[in-house]
């Protein structure tokens, strides 16, 4: 089902939703794009994607889970409620929405992480088609269409008159129903709204099927991993900026008479990630880099039948030593 809306009406509609939900939309803050409370800001055509992935809105880098009060030898635990209240995020990109879906089975399954799952269920995802290829990105190679996605409730394509929306879920339908803001649109209008992507490569850099098929074969090749990880400085920025990196630590904060336990971001790039009392199975850098790539393109696929990478390009664009994951994948696929 397709609907359309003018740019002005879209802003009015989003502003109206604020009565019922927290509404976030792209905004530039201190020169960097982020998702911020919607305040009728203009939507710049220059917005490509947020500097940080929106994962922290779902998998917070610091999430307090319970707290305790202690004294006189007694201790009382107090569970902290998972996040609450409805939320609407406008302007998310297909790669980042796919990442949220990829992570879902990790936090669902037989042990449900209610914090992540509640963040997913309380949020309506309104996506927006891309108009330019992001720096470092390889979404096409990863099978992601930057101008279409079923991982949203509603997905918008911009047109000179406003937007054509593809309504995907019942929630999205309910949200865009009524005659006040949206009008009906045809599939033809939707198809016409698919525009060009600036800077798009004619040909894929590598064949994902070959990466999948050969990732396990490359795993034991110590020489390969040593060579490709040689310039890595273990800064962990790739894991921090990655929309699918989700490894976490559980940490305590203790103050006099009280404390709390947090689930907080961690990184496989750090040497102490797997450090045990007398042994560290990934002490050497090449083993940690191999773990990151293999987790995404081999182990995660074996366990969840999905590749834990969406080709957003943030790790490529922001690596301080220009370690380009695309080059590594290209070599694996060769």
């Amino acid at each position, binding site marked *: 089902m397709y609907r359309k809306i003018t740019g002005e009406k879209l802003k009015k509609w989003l502003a109206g939703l604020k009565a019922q939900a927290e509404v976030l939309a792209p905004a530039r803050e201190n020169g960097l794009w982020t998702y911020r409370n919607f305040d009728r800001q203009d939507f710049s055509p220059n917005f490509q994607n947020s500097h940080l992935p929106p994962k922290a809105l779902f998998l917070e880098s610091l999430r307090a889970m319970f707290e305790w009060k202690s004294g006189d030898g007694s201790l009382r635990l107090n569970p902290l409620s998972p996040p609450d209240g409805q939320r609407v995020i406008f302007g998310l990109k297909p790669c980042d929405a796919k990442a949220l879906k990829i992570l879902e089975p990790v936090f669902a399954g037989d042990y449900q992480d209610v914090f992540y799952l509640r963040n997913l*269920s309380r949020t309506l995802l309104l996506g927006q088609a891309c108009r330019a290829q992001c720096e470092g990105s390889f979404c096409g190679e990863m099978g992601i269409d930057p101008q279409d996605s079923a991982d949203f409730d509603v997905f918008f394509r911009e047109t000179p008159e406003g937007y054509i929306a593809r309504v995907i879920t019942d929630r999205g339908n309910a949200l865009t129903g009524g005659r006040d803001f949206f009008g009906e649109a045809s599939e033809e209008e939707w198809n016409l709204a698919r525009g060009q992507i600036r800077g798009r490569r004619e040909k894929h850099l590598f064949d994902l099927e070959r990466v999948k098929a050969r990732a396990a074969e490359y795993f034991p090749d110590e020489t390969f991993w040593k060579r490709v990880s040689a310039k890595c400085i273990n800064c962990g920025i790739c894991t921090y900026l990655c929309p699918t990196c989700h490894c*976490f630590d559980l940490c305590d904060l203790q103050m006099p008479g009280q404390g709390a336990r947090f689930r907080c971001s*961690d990184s496989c790039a750090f040497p102490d990630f797997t450090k045990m009392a007398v042994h560290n*199975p990934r002490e050497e850098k090449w083993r940690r880099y191999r773990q990151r790539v293999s987790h995404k393109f*081999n182990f995660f696929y074996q366990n969840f039948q999905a590749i834990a990478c969406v080709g957003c390009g943030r790790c490529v664009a922001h690596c301080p030593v220009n370690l380009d994951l695309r080059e590594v994948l290209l070599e694996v696929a060769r």
Partner: protein
Amino acid sequence: MNQLPTKALAGELSIYQPHLMEIIRVIPETGDTKTFHIQFLDSALRETFSFLSGQFAEYSVFGEGEATFCISSSPSRRGHLEFSVKRVGRVTEALHQLNQGDIIGLRGPYGNHFPLDQLKGKDLLFIGGGIGLAPLRSLIHNVLDNRSDYREITILYGARSPQDLCFKYDLETWSRNPAVKMITTVDAGDKDWKGQVGLVPVVLEEIGPSPDGAVAITCGPPIMIRYTLRSLEKLGFLPSQVWTTLEMKMKCGLGKCGRCNIGPLYVCKDGPVFSYEEIRNFSSDEF
């Protein structure tokens, strides 16, 4: 706008929230190892909590964090749980400061367990080293509490020195039990030492147990496990007749936090108990 589904959380703990436990006894095992006996504060949980030998739990010292230890008591002996801790880092150091009456947290039980069904009617060979006796001890007690289900039971246990032997009270009971063949060895004895002297795999080859209708279960320091597996192979044990437990750094214990994997396998969910056959086929050597 549709109302989002809300999940009732009242009375339901998040997967990361531990149960409160009272320490009811602390037993010093060696200079750096202690065994803790703990009991649920919630009396209903004392009745309903169940686990299987080989499973582990996450133990909290509130303010210091969590650490992973196997449950070293037997599911056949209810009432309280036991776990043993060598002092090596932040949480274990904090645990060692605790006394009877202090409160800790426990999440679990997690992971798989020893294949008790496959042990029935077999000769059992337990091979332990140092604190590695802890998970074996759970299974040994479990098996001894149903002694008639099994044939010969041999326990080979080793430590660096007589002072480093854990669970001396168990070793003594087992050595007096006519239905158990108990061999204790140390790397270096002292003038009072009456057991064997020598490394576990060496002593194992000296005893030379027959692999016919037998299952070997081994746990200890990685280096001991490595050589013990070789010795068992030399004695004619098939990889499918040998079981061990593996150790990796864990945080969540639930297959989510992303660090205890050996290749695609997560020790917390796919382990910690593995057959030697599985280990031989691992795609990764990172353990």
